[in-house]
């Protein structure tokens, strides 16, 4: 089986605090994989290591059969950080152009991708405003657009829909599903919103640096004998402690 992402016995500590403890996880191509878990569980840490922005203490992470960190692979990975990292003195358009020019794209591709990404997050009419005049949700949307800019095979989105209104959230999720179904992209999403978790193909629940449980949303609901996904989150946490 060719995995898109293979995480093997990965541990990570910050100082004495063990943040991730022997994580094993494989993600197949063309799946949406959701990470859920309480705040401070280690989701962001794990996701950053997949992108190669952080190193593992022990264990290995392979993306598209190449060991991370790998500079060349970053062309194939679109990353949206949990906190917006934008140049606030520049306009939305200038931000998009800047990030686009860091990837291997030619001029027409840059134009096409910018108009696609901006349109997807409904920012086309706001692109000439400076980012410091953006609202919180607009910044979030711009970050998402930047993650999509180089048309990557793998999308890693750290809480992409925080601060985005329900209508736009729905249309973003529809687009994520379309990207998965039509373009075969692999998508990792961390989220605290359970109805989003339910839309994923697989969900892993992380708590205190270990994967407590994993499976399709349906399996998880059956496992805990509940019909509301919120309760999976609550019960999984309770069983452990």
């Amino acid at each position, binding site marked *: 089986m060719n995995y898109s992402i293979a995480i093997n016995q990965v541990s990570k500590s910050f100082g004495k605090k063990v943040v991730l403890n022997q994580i094993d996880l494989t993600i197949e191509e063309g799946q949406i994989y959701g990470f859920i878990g309480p705040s401070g569980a280690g989701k962001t840490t794990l996701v950053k290591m997949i992108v*190669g922005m952080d190193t593992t203490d022990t264990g290995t992470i392979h993306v598209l059969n190449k060991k991370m960190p790998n500079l060349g692979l970053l062309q194939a990975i679109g990353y949206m950080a949990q906190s917006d990292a934008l140049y606030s*003195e520049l306009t939305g358009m200038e931000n998009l152009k*800047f990030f686009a020019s860091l990837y291997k794209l030619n001029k027409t591709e840059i134009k096409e991708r910018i108009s696609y990404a901006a349109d997807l997050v409904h920012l086309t009419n706001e692109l000439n405003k400076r980012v410091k005049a953006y609202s919180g949700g607009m910044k979030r949307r711009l970050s998402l657009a930047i993650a999509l800019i180089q048309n990557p095979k793998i999308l890693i989105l750290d809480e992409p829909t925080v601060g985005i209104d329900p209508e736009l959230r729905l249309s973003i999720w529809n687009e994520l599903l379309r990207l998965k179904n039509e373009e075969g992209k692999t998508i990792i999403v961390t989220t605290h919103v359970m109805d989003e978790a339910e839309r994923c193909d697989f969900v892993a629940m992380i708590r205190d640096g270990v994967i407590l449980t994993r499976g399709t949303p349906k399996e998880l609901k059956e496992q805990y004998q509940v019909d509301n996904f919120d309760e999976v989150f609550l019960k999984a946490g309770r069983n452990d402690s």
Partner: protein
Amino acid sequence: MRTVAVIKRICQEMLRDKRTLALLFVAPLIILTLMYFLFNGNTVDPKLGVVNIDNNLVKILEETKINVKHYDQAGRELIVEEELDGLLELKDEKLVLTLQNSDPSIAKALQMKVNQSVSFQAQSKVLNSNAAPLAIQKNDIDTQYVYGNSETSFFDVLSPVLVGFFVFFFVFLISGIGLLKERTTGTLERLMSTPIRRGEIVTAYLVGFGIFAVIQTVIVVLFSINVLDMVLVGSVWHVILINLLLALVALSLGTLLSTFAASEFQMVQFIPIAVIPQVFFAGIFPLEGMANWLQSIGKIMPIYYAADALKGVMYKGLGLKDISGDLFVLVVFATFFIILNIFALKKYRRL
């Protein structure tokens, strides 16, 4: 290509930030102008060489805290070689005082002391013998200068140092805070999730801020020379070259130190540690008067070399060959800091 993208972005951001631009380009001019009006002198025990001077006068000179040294032959080379502040010589029954004048305040103090000593001796001679007053008076001393002339002011010597210092200070501050902003807003970390290399980021920062440093340097140098009328004996191109190298050192040091700062405020805290001490060794205070260990501290300060080269070119009219040693040291400093910068980014990504 990616480097160019980052450079372009840095320029866009800088041009939007009018206040920082003003700080970079206008503040040094204002301060230099102020200094021009405010300069003040300082005193150090001067070193005086004597040739053919009678022992009586030497004693009197020594009493006025002049460090007197005896030589057999006089000459300008002697003053430069022995690093004397002045040379007093009896030639054809006339006293000739040659002042090095690389620091006019020292030269003036020395001249005054010599004058006093000579007239004191003349007076005591009158008192001791009843002979006719042997009128050796102030005007009888023929005063000559190795560098500059009696019109040279302290500012003339100070100004090369000041030009260098302001270039260093503002480039240091602005490049440091520029990279720091990338760190604190998280965009630097975000950049690490793109295929950009660490070396490309460092290069882009050097070039991006370098462009502004070049403009600033040229403005400061031209303003100093044309408006403030600073002495410039050597070539203006050499002055610009020295300052550009110094700006490169400041740029790389600023971005490097910003690694160790968590906020703009902490970056400012580096000024008393990394910048102010350099002023002490830049030649504003004469190095000769310092203890040996202090002098060796001065030798690890980039501004020490830049100031030495700038003084050489602007005041003494030295050529490129004479200052090549100083320039080389500056290049070494810059290279060293640039390499450290690339290593410092490892904190964010190993590749």
